[in-house]
């Protein structure tokens, strides 16, 4: 890393996921190899070919007071819960609001609000709508609410890049601090899209697993039997901070947020370019941005959504960009795919893997696909050896967005 560049560190983590209502419960479930996927019981399940999902383990209604919850879309509820946890975890410091930023996006936004408000509008008329309908459906709502909560005035931003959203937010947060716009940034992603319309739409794109008889075994990245992704919901949010600021206040530092790389495939609106160059180049750019070499990277948290094409393309891209030595996990095998929240929680898992020097195993990896030349973690979690370690979180999104975020040990 160039000497004149501000080092950005991670000082707080917050999440609510299908595996747990916070980071600690989610992480321990991952290490135990538990699945957060279950059969759905909603009425609309009969109308769609996919009948399971990764529903948040703790309903946000159990956490938030009713007056607050009713003004927030479910995606905003997740985001606010995760942001509060992350801020508490960072020590809830008294900081200058003009130096505190927020970057929290969502892949889809307040889709639950849009659909229920539309029904209400059609059935009862415009004047039955909540005056909060617009801030509930807008995809930047989470960023706005978090900025109000924390008094963050250095800018509140919402990236939107489908399933790369959470990772892109963290990359943007790193840049905000490096460019001198902020000392601290609360960054990540959220999603609440388990609704009949979304399931139907993803199913129409032939992107989802239909393993209805074995929901816990449906998300199986890199396995021969994989047949599509499994929808999840929740949020993952981190507190980024300049190292100088963190050291000055004696903060606990989890890892260095060393850099991010971005490319766009410019190939197909939903499918990865089979040559995998977009993902490869995103990883290489993240490494250059972090002043790291491929040989420094010991671990990759793959995007690996359990789709037949995507996983193999990504495995090849990791092999090309990083090398066969990379210890690769795919935590969507347990959480499902949180879309805009994925890059948030998976960055947290990458950070914790470095911090605790252990990588969760890929669940349901019974029979790895042929031709995968990276080191997939099977069976038991894998320990990471060594002092100075680097790891990458990959997140790729519909639209052709490729984002890689590089983290290192402190």
């Amino acid at each position, binding site marked *: 890393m160039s000497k004149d560049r501000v080092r950005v560190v991670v000082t707080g983590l917050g999440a609510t996921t299908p595996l747990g209502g916070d980071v600690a419960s989610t992480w321990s479930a991952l290490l135990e190899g538990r699945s957060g996927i279950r059969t759905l019981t909603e009425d609309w399940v009969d109308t769609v070919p996919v009948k399971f999902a990764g529903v948040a383990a703790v309903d946000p209604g159990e956490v938030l*007071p*009713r*007056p*607050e919850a*009713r003004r927030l879309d479910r995606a905003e509820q997740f985001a606010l819960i995760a942001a509060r946890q992350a801020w508490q975890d960072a020590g809830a410091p008294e900081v200058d609001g003009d130096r505190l930023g927020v970057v929290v996006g969502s892949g889809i936004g307040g889709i639950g609000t849009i659909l229920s408000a539309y029904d209400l509008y059609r059935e009862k008329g415009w*004047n*039955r*709508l*909540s*005056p*909060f309908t617009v801030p509930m459906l807008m995809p930047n709502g989470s960023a706005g609410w978090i900025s109000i909560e924390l008094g963050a005035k250095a800018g509140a931003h919402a990236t939107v890049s489908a399933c790369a959203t959470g990772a892109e937010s963290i990359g943007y947060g790193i840049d905000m601090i490096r460019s001198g716009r902020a000392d601290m940034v609360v960054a990540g992603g959220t999603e609440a899209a388990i609704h009949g319309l979304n399931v139907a739409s993803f199913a129409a794109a032939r992107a989802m697993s239909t393993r209805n008889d074995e929901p816990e075994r449906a998300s199986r990245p890199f396995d021969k039997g994989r047949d599509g992704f499994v929808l999840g919901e929740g949020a993952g949010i981190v507190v980024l901070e300049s190292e100088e600021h963190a050291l000055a206040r004696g903060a606990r530092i989890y890892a260095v947020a060393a850099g991010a790389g971005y490319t766009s495939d410019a190939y197909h609106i939903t499918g990865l370019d089979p040559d995998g160059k977009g993902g490869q180049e995103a990883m290489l750019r993240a490494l250059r941005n972090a002043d790291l070499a491929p040989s420094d990277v010991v671990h990759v948290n793959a995007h690996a959504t359990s789709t037949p094409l995507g996983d193999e393309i990504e495995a090849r891209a990791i092999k090309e960009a990083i090398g066969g030595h990379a210890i690769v996990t795919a935590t969507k095998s347990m959480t499902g795919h949180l879309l805009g929240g994925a890059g948030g929680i998976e960055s947290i898992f990458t950070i914790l893997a470095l911090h605790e020097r252990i990588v969760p195993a890929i669940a349901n990896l019974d029979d790895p696909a042929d031709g995968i030349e990276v080191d997939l973690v099977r069976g038991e979690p894998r320990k990471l050896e060594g002092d100075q370690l680097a790891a990458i979180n990959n997140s790729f999104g519909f639209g052709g967005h490729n984002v890689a975020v590089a983290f290192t040990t402190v």
Partner: protein
Amino acid sequence: MALTEQEILAGLGKIINEITGIPADEVTPEKSFVDDLDIDSLSMVEIAVAAQDEFGVEIPDDQLKHLKTVKDVISFIQA
């Protein structure tokens, strides 16, 4: 059948508690929404929407702004 003041008050207390978190028993007729209960204009819209559903009485925006106290709303609903 017309509702009594007590019945409307109880219903309003429930609605205001749901929307603002203010305990229902603090919602008494003489209280001003802005000065005593610290309820902002958007929350008043939420309360009006909920009251319309609960009591079946439309509260137009130009009327809503004149309803300053809990008692004003009760009277409007009874009228």
